[in-house]
């Protein structure tokens, strides 16, 4: 029974921490002042109240859960042969659920079409720059994290490559360094796609041979280097002041003349089309032999290799594919608005990871929902806390999700099953074991 006071202590500490997080901002002259002010305030009553409430829930949880279980399904099931068989039955039933999926998808799409019409212009801007772009980025990173089971912490670097490629090819004034000709940004899409994929291959090919977690740190360094170069190479990228005057997207084809402009709505609908298109495309990929190979690699890399799956090549494919989506999004971003190296910081990379994790890795709808919710949270917090402070909350969200709901908000069925099974000691749920576990050279 010593667990109860300990739980109370932990809850109170958590409450104090929450008070400090939401409290006033301090500075280095009086380092503990801000924290003290946060605690020695009336608000502390609220936080301690919440802490005690949390404790009560935790302590009474088992009993409450019994009550709740009568109303809804229990939140976590123990894994037994019986549940496994049930999981199996459910997957049979999944085929019949296709119709419902289409209906839900249609409903969500309708909401997505109507939503921007009923919000402020500022919110519309955010729906393009933040939600739309990050949904696209998250869909790309999902291929790396969700499908291939790898971790890319420099993902935003490919986004930067796309954005700077747009500035280079589509404008002679945006950066000091520019192409000898000027292209319509639409033509930069394929170029950026290929450039980003190439960068991905160059970075991934040597690294993916090694342990999977080395990829994380190499991409981390790569992201930082791209950021540093963008920031410091004044003569090439324009340095910290960024790239100005990249033209908006425009179409002049077969009598159709249309130019996207300041108004966010046309960009929003373009993005919506692209995001839905990418979701459909990746859905097909996931259900193809390629998606199955990725699943095989995640679940048992040695067996996958022995079954003839070229594991290295498939991982590289996922990595390059993710990178190319990021490069593609970079073009959209650059043609939409002014940008500077700040847009490509390490934190931006971490934020995309947060979106994928929060939404549910491996789940296309999940990562889009993740982008909506987290960027929605960021938008909501924009007047309430300093922009940089928002990352405190995102960091906390990541940890909390990993502890309580690693499969994410809208999990992929297969991913959740993998996590459950691997936690029960059957198979794996990522590719972070040694990358070449099968070749032992004594």
């Amino acid at each position, binding site marked *: 029974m010593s667990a109860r006071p300990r739980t109370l202590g932990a809850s109170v500490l958590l409450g104090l921490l929450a008070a400090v997080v939401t409290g006033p901002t301090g500075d280095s002259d009086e380092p503990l002042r801000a924290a003290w002010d946060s605690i020695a305030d009336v608000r502390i009553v609220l936080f301690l109240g919440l802490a005690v409430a949390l404790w009560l829930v935790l302590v009474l949880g088992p009993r409450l859960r019994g009550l709740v279980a009568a109303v809804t399904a229990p939140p976590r099931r123990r894994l037994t042969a019986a549940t496994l068989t049930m999981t199996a039955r459910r997957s049979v039933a999944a085929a019949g659920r296709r119709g419902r999926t289409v209906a839900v998808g249609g409903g969500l799409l309708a909401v997505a079409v109507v939503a921007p019409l009923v919000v402020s212009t500022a919110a519309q801007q955010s729906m393009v720059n933040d939600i739309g772009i990050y949904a696209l980025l998250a869909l790309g990173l999902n291929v790396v994290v969700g499908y291939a089971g790898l971790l890319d912490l420099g993902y935003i670097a490919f986004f930067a490559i796309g954005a700077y490629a747009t500035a280079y090819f589509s404008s002679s004034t945006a950066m000091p360094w520019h192409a000898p000709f000027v292209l319509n940004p639409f033509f930069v899409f394929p170029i950026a796609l290929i450039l980003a994929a190439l960068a991905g291959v160059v970075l991934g090919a040597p690294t993916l041979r090694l342990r999977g977690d080395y990829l994380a740190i190499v991409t981390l360094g790569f992201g930082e280097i791209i950021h540093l170069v963008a920031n410091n190479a004044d003569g090439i990228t324009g340095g910290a002041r960024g790239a100005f005057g990249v033209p908006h997207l425009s179409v002049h084809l077969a009598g159709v003349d249309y130019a996207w402009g300041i108004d966010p709505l046309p960009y929003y609908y373009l993005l919506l089309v692209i995001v839905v298109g990418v979701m459909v495309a990746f859905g097909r990929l996931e259900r193809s032999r390629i998606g199955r190979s990725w699943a095989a690699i995640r679940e048992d890399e040695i067996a996958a290799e022995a079954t003839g799956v070229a594991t290295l090549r498939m991982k590289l494919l996922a990595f390059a594919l993710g990178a190319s989506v990021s490069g593609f999004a970079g073009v959209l971003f650059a043609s939409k608005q002014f940008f500077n190296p700040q847009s490509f910081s390490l*934190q931006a990379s971490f934020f995309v990871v947060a979106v994928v994790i929060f939404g549910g890795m491996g789940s296309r709808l999940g990562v889009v929902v993740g982008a909506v919710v987290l960027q929605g949270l960021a938008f909501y917090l924009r007047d309430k806390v300093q922009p940089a402070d928002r990352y405190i909350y995102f960091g906390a969200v990541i940890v909390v999700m990993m502890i309580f709901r690693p499969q994410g908000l809208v999990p992929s069925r297969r991913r959740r099953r993998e996590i459950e099974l691997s936690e029960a000691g059957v198979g794996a749920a990522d590719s972070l074991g040694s990358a070449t576990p099968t070749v032992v050279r004594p």
Partner: protein
Amino acid sequence: MGFLDQFWQLSVDGLMVGSLYAVIALGYTLVYGVLQLINFAHSEVFMLGSFGGLFAARALLPGDGSVPGGAGSIALVAVGLGAGAACGGLAAFTLERVAYRPLRRRAAPRLAYLISAIGASLFAVNLAGKEFGRQNVDLPDLFHNGTVFRLFGAAVSTQTLVIFAVAVAMLVGLDRLVAGTRLGQGIRAVAQDADTAVLMGVNVERIIIVTFVVGGLLAGAGGFLYAMTFNASYSMGFVPGVKAFTAAVLGGIGNVRGAMLGGLLLGLVESYGGYLFQASYKDVIAFGVLVAILMIRPSGLLGERLGRAA
């Protein structure tokens, strides 16, 4: 002023910084040895230790801006080291409890640990930024810094000497701890085979937490030393963190002596490289070293075994 004229000075500077990398690298290597896990949030442990040491030493400084001397200096440095280590140890303990242990309890996939660590790191960096401001914070001089002696014409300052001496003392201490004590035996046992260690009666949970805390103590003290030469800031952890990780990989991750060797080597390479190319490319050089080792000899110079080569 050719490279050769500067060689000894660059070596002295490189060794000093390298000894700090080595101290931080031990945290990565210890945790990796025991859990086969890159502790991505270790750089934040370093950052928090740095702030802790800095604030503690600053609070005890006479307010008039004068530089103490003699016993006063020694006491201040000792307090700074102690406070830094304490903060680092506490941060590492909290990190393990909050971000790792719940995952370990349910045998989560390894990806989950990495992501959880990134979340914790994001949280800690930005909370520090919020609480302590987002500018660089300088530590006032704690002693009269002058040239103590010359080594082949290279000036060795008091500060360099203090940092190097303390770092080497910590390295030797840790080496003794891992190689020669019961605790170290436990750490090595868990590193070699956690399952068997459990059967042999080793309290693995305790070993893990102790490993984190020991890494945190070192990183925190190292953070204070780092703040003494450079400064402290909320985002200070990232670059030394990546470099220390590089040092750990260079020496062979999971290998304690390897991490020490890797740190010193990396410090030297970076120091020479920064002179030969441009100081602003130091970070790029370190990263280049990382990629090069991963391609050429991913198991590091001394091989990857905490269990054996400690």
